[in-house]
């Protein structure tokens, strides 16, 4: 597979959230708004690219039986380094993303890609894979966050859309608060997965 294909597969064909259904904890927990989705997605992408690169570098030294503990050490160290460095030198950014960084440790997309891809492929391909998967993850979180924010608050990225549209039509907008609450995450994700599967079937 060429680099272009490695890159693009993570976005649609093997989208980590909509197709692989990986990393559900951060996906469901933080997508209360589109902005949070983007923040979590970008932070995860950064760690994913770095950990993919390192795992790929050491893949020939690490014995197969201890690879999972090694991956976990690498990923956890990376997350901590990112957390500290961002806190020290990009403090405002850290304030915005700080909540999500520790969550990345438990994001199984990172471990999943280390195991399924970086462990078997050269460094450059692994980095490209990490980029593609990261963008796919960010996109999925953005979509999920947008749907929930739109229904639960009437806005996307803080811009009032539904409320303004409805009041223009002479109706008042009453937010569906359950969409921002945890159950809304499952409802929205379930519906989106249904639509995507339907579209896939139609294609095939």
């Amino acid at each position, binding site marked *: 597979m060429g680099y272009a294909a490695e890159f693009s597969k993570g976005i649609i064909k093997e989208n980590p959230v909509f197709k692989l259904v990986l990393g559900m904890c951060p996906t469901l927990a*933080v997508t*209360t*708004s589109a902005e*949070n989705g983007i923040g979590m997605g970008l932070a995860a992408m950064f760690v994913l690219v770095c950990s993919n690169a390192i795992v790929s570098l*050491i893949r020939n*030294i*690490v*014995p197969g*039986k*201890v690879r999972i*503990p*090694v991956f976990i*050490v*690498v990923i*956890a*160290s990376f997350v*901590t*380094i990112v957390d*500290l*460095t961002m*806190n*020290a*030198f990009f*403090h405002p950014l850290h304030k915005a993303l700080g*909540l999500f960084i520790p969550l990345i440790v438990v994001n199984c997309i990172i471990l999943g890609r280390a195991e399924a891809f970086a462990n078997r492929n050269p460094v450059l391909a692994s980095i490209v894979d990490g980029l593609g998967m990261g963008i796919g993850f960010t996109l999925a979180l953005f979509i999920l966050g947008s749907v929930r*924010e739109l229904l*639960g*608050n009437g806005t996307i990225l803080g811009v009032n859309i539904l409320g303004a549209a409805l009041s223009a039509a002479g109706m008042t907008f009453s*937010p569906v*608060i359950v969409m*921002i*609450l945890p159950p809304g995450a499952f409802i929205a994700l379930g519906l989106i997965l249904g639509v995507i599967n339907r579209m896939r079937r139609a294609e095939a």
Partner: protein
Amino acid sequence: MKDLLRMAVVLGVICVVAALALSQVYKVTKEPIAQAKEAEAKEAAAAVLSAVVGDGVEMVKRENVAGKDAVYVAQAGDAAKGFAFKVDTNSGYSGKIVGMIGLDADGNILGFKVVEHAETPGLGANIAVNEPWQKQLIAKDGQPRNLDNTDWRVKKDGGEIDALTGATISPRAICGAIKAGLEWFRDNRVELTGNAAPVEAVEPTPDPDAPIVPTPDATLEEGGIVDKNLPAAKPLPTTTKTPLPIQGKDLTE
């Protein structure tokens, strides 16, 4: 056997390398993080005291005051116009909430800002972004809130602070933190302001209405008069109006 040894060595080496890398990163970032936090605290203090900060007012940091690491004082000459300090609580929805509170010398709230929290984004986290909600913490009917004129509980608990949509726990925690801060200020006001507030002077005047009227704005304007007015004006509400039941009820929650 050889395999086992190899596994142990590789895993061990990687852990040691990771630990070394982390300790180095920690060492390098420790100072900048502390500086960034300090700058942030200073900024937050200036923000919550923005009502009194201006020409001729200087922000002074006092360390280790009555159990607080730092108190920022807006100093105009000899008169302390405002005090800003951190309050924190562990009764939020997740983790610690740290806020910066700004008070004038009478213990009226000038400003409040959430500095650090880990509440749920979109719900509890609105304590840090929802401006209308934050405004009601500071003022009621145009008057600054303080320990005496406000029942520092959310409405659901019988108090007078609105909760947030889908989030009651975080606002409840904020109320508790502010109340604790106000009480801390009341208990340490003498040390902070430097003027004696004779508690004995309170008892002879049992009339609850008289002292409340003159306090609010007139005395605040002129720094010079504050010294004379304060001891008489301030302690009165504290003793006459603080309804003990409030404290009792709060403890049970």
